[in-house]
């Protein structure tokens, strides 16, 4: 299964690399979100620094909807869904490949956004290990849920508007846990953050397991 997932992930990443959608649309969108918040919130009262973790993850969350939509739009637009079903690839492998490709894109995005957050919001990171331990499972959870709900919305004509409606409520626990863990990583209170990081691992496993379990049905249903 892993070999097949690697084939799918490599194809999706090659598609993104050649189309440049992530670098020219998703990343600028996320950075713009951060910049607009920086303008909207009064920095003199220290509010900006306090809400920085939440704004960071909201920007990642919104970008996830774009990446998830794109991951399945390429199949719909290219008319390749039938060929994908006929390819003999295991649906679980297709799911894992698509989720992995989304995760790689989101990790790249998070690096850019983290740099932007430090510059725009003037935050200092006290416990980088905690942030990494939270960000990785959070991103896997986002990628897994994005791949699942992207497939669910793929066959619907209004998928661009439907997908955020379906996806964002499901990702609310990830937003809360990731924000809390990031706050702890910034505030030098790591003991408060490790529990949230553990919860993110559970959420990542839950979303990945559920996605792998139902993706075949979603692929057949399209």
């Amino acid at each position, binding site marked *: 299964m892993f070999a097949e997932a690697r084939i799918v992930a490599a194809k999706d990443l*090659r598609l993104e690399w*050649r189309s440049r959608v992530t670098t020219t649309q998703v990343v600028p969108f996320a950075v713009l979100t951060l910049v607009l918040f920086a303008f909207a919130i009064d920095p003199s009262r220290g509010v900006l620094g306090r809400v920085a973790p939440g704004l960071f993850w909201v920007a990642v969350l919104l970008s996830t909807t774009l990446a998830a939509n794109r991951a399945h739009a390429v199949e719909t637009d290219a008319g*390749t869904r039938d*060929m*994908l079903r006929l390819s*003999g690839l295991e649906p679980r492998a297709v799911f894992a490949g698509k989720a992995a490709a989304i995760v790689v894109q989101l990790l790249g995005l998070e690096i850019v956004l983290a740099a932007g957050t430090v510059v725009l919001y003037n935050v200092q990171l006290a416990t980088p290990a905690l942030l990494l331990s939270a960000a990785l499972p959070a991103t896997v959870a986002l990628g897994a849920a994005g791949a699942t709900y992207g497939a669910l919305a793929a066959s619907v004509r209004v998928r661009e508007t439907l997908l955020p409606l379906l996806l964002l409520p499901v990702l609310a626990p990830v937003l809360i846990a990731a924000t809390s863990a990031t706050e702890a990583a910034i505030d030098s209170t790591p003991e408060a953050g490790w529990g949230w990081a553990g919860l993110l691992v559970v959420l990542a496993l839950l979303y990945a397991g559920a996605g792998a379990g139902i993706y075949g049905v979603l692929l057949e249903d399209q």
Partner: protein
Amino acid sequence: MAPAVRFHQAVALLGRFPALAGVDLDVAAGQIVLLRGPNGAGKTTLLRASAGLVPITSGSLEVLGHDLVTDPRSVRRRVGYAGTGAGLYDDLTVAGNVTFWTRAAGVAAEAGAEAMAHLEVDGRLADVAVAQLSTGQRKRALLAALVARRPELWLLDEPHAGLDEAGRDLVDELLRRAAAAGATVLFASHELDRAAGVATREVTIVGGIVVDDHPPEGNPAAAAVHRPAKTPYRSAEVPVVR
């Protein structure tokens, strides 16, 4: 020897519409069957059902010895389907597309290179993004991805459309070679003169049922391998869907 494809009283619904309304059709291995009929007759649905892409809601369908009613995924790796949709990733090159589908099917990379050379989309064209190809070149690239998989059952929807004369000849040659190698071919076409020249059997579908089944006119060699459908003129019992 069991037929490569056997429809018996097969009904397939698209939404609530019976696109196949009780099809009976046996296709022996090695046959090249032209599906003809007006738009909306059920030709594409029959092809997609044969690939396990459309469920059969009543009746039976066996393909390459597998019951597709109970397990529609069972034959997919052995079937090649080229629909009227694009089927290729615009942002990938021809080689990128063929390589992906070849690897996905678990076929050796050499098969992809051979298929691209055979369809004449190798060399300079191999590194061109599909979005920049002409319609005919795209069709050739799609067929290359199909040929590389070496399917046992070929299911083609309008395979000649968009191709120039040389491309059409190439398609005909591909179909003949596949059948000669033991593969079975079902294809739908509205270009009847061209299609009848390569088919060994013509099956006409109207309203989701087979209404005629005979060797193509002007192709006497086809009569030798022709095997008619079991009940070619049977009235369909169109299911009432509420």
